[in-house]
């Protein structure tokens, strides 16, 4: 970083910024600090390099790796061949991949769309306009579940659901019930609801503040049930929030690897969602090229969700990360 106050670049830009000011442009963009384009670029470059190498490049590389038979060991490790769309054809015909897609659909629908959003909305709705200790405690607990490291949460649920030592069996008087083995999907769905509801609760809590209480009161006096109030008065007003929330939590859940720590995809692949499938075939099974091809499919799904999200966020004026 150069440090001279009166360099030519600075001078140049001082003039330029004076001109912009004079022409009445927005003061924010008037180069007030006399940064100069060159120095400004210098400020941006380090971040761009890190993001470029560790985020953009991997994305592009996935596309290339996906059309090779690149492997962790053997001949294809040293000298990968280009195999065209073979990986994709194989993945699309692989029953294990189909199964993992179906399980992922259940995971996203059950734990995010229904679980997190449903419970998050219900809590936000019940606690709206009711400040006090109850609100603080319930919200605090849900936020705390969100803030705990996900590895710890995974372990907590293993401890709760364990067949022999599990607290749940002790509480429910169901000695020997093997929750994780018998119901692996239900287990990780409950786990993801527990750790992820906070985001929806906060989002809907903020959204409900935009619904005028007088409208609800009017509906209530007209004899509308709670369900009708929500459907006819609340939902039309917070439709944007609902859409944003659904897209974000689905995207996050679709990409979530944390459940691996509870069931590792088992038993017998019965909770093998797509991220776990990729990890298993690519990094454990050594078929990097094939794994990259499946990853690219995930990337495409993410892209669609993210584009939809940015569009809804933009139309509501503001892009929250």
């Amino acid at each position, binding site marked *: *970083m150069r440090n001279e*106050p009166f360099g030519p670049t600075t001078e140049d830009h001082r003039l330029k910024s004076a001109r912009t000011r004079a022409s009445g442009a927005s003061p*924010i*963009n008037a*180069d*007030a*600090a006399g*940064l100069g384009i060159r*120095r*400004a*670029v210098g*400020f*941006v470059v*380090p*971040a761009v390099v*890190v993001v470029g190498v*560790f*985020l*953009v*490049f991997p*994305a592009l590389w996935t596309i290339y*790796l996906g059309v090779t038979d690149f492997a962790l060991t053997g001949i294809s490790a040293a000298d990968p061949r280009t195999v065209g769309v073979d990986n994709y054809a194989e993945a699309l015909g692989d029953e294990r991949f189909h199964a993992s897609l179906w399980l992922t659909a259940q995971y996203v629908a059950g734990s995010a769309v229904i679980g997190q959003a449903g419970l998050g909305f*219900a809590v936000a709705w*019940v606690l709206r306009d009711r400040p006090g200790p*109850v609100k603080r405690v*319930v919200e605090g*607990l*849900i*936020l*705390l*579940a*969100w*803030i*705990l490291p996900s*590895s*710890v949460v995974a372990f*907590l*649920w*293993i401890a709760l659901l364990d067949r*022999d*030592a599990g607290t749940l069996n002790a509480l429910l008087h169901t000695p020997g019930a093997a929750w994780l083995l018998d119901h692996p999907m239900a287990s990780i769905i409950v786990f993801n609801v*527990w750790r992820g509801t906070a985001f929806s609760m*906060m989002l809907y809590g903020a959204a409900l503040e935009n619904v005028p209480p007088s409208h609800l009161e009017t509906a209530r006096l007209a004899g509308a049930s709670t369900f009708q109030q929500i459907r006819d008065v609340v939902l039309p007003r917070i439709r944007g929030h609902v859409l944003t929330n659904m897209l974000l939590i689905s995207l996050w859940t679709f*990409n*979530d*690897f*944390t459940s691996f720590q509870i069931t*590792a995809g088992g038993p017998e692949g019965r909770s093998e969602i797509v991220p776990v499938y*990729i*990890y298993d075939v690519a*990094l454990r099974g050594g078929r990097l090229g094939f794994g990259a091809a499946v*990853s690219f499919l*995930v*990337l495409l799904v993410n*892209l669609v969700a*993210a584009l939809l*999200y*940015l569009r809804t966020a933009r139309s509501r004026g503001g*892009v929250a*990360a």
Partner: protein
Amino acid sequence: MRGREAAARARHAAAAIGRATFLAVVAGFFALPMLWLATAPFDAHPTITVSLPEFTLAGFRELLAHPYALRSLGNSVLQAAGSTVLVVVLAALAAYALSRVRVPGRDVLLYLLLLLSSVVTGTAAMVPVFELATRLNLVDTHLGVVLTLSGGLLPAAIFILKDFMDGTPASYEESARVFGASPSQILRHIVVPVIRPGLATIAVWTVASVWGSFLTPFILLRDPDKAPGAVILYTLYTEGGSPRLELISTFSLLYSLPVVLMYVFVSRRYGFRFHGGIKR
């Protein structure tokens, strides 16, 4: 008339009871695992918490004797600190430049970066990230983990900080410049103090994200000496034999405390209003 009033009152009472029941069930659902986390480390038999716990500190003794447990907490601190410094400094520089100078294509660049950071997830990029780290000799290094995690966090950090910068008037900087301050002086003495809340937000968000991340260190680190808490916690209950619940619960508690304390501090100080993913 009186009948209708009574019916309304009954309905009101039923609704109140329904609400209370719902909240009690929700509170129980969320509190139960936390109660276990808070008590199990001190319980000689952390199997069935409904019985009165038998107080012990054996878990802590075991933890001290464990070869990787405490060290992994140090590794977590190292990786979180490294990522936070990198993300805060690089994001602040980039956001400042992008906010104050009209660079052609700026908005498109920001938009694309933000889009990419939510599209390129650990799941979608685990193969190339693993390959990249192998080729750059970053496997089994803290630097590899820090750089990978920072690359994912930076776009959103830049976006949030640029918002903060856009919201602060440029007039301070202009007057400082009139008095002959250099750009770096302006940055250090004017911009940084003004956007301190934004920097704090980014720092807290980065620490929480890195502290909880599992996949990246799990695939990039082989040597248990370098593994952070998340990975060691996973290996603690998968490494052969029956898991030592008292050891793992003690470790979980210690590993959770820093982020929980940070959360309490932040919510006390600023109110907890992090919109958007403090964690993913």
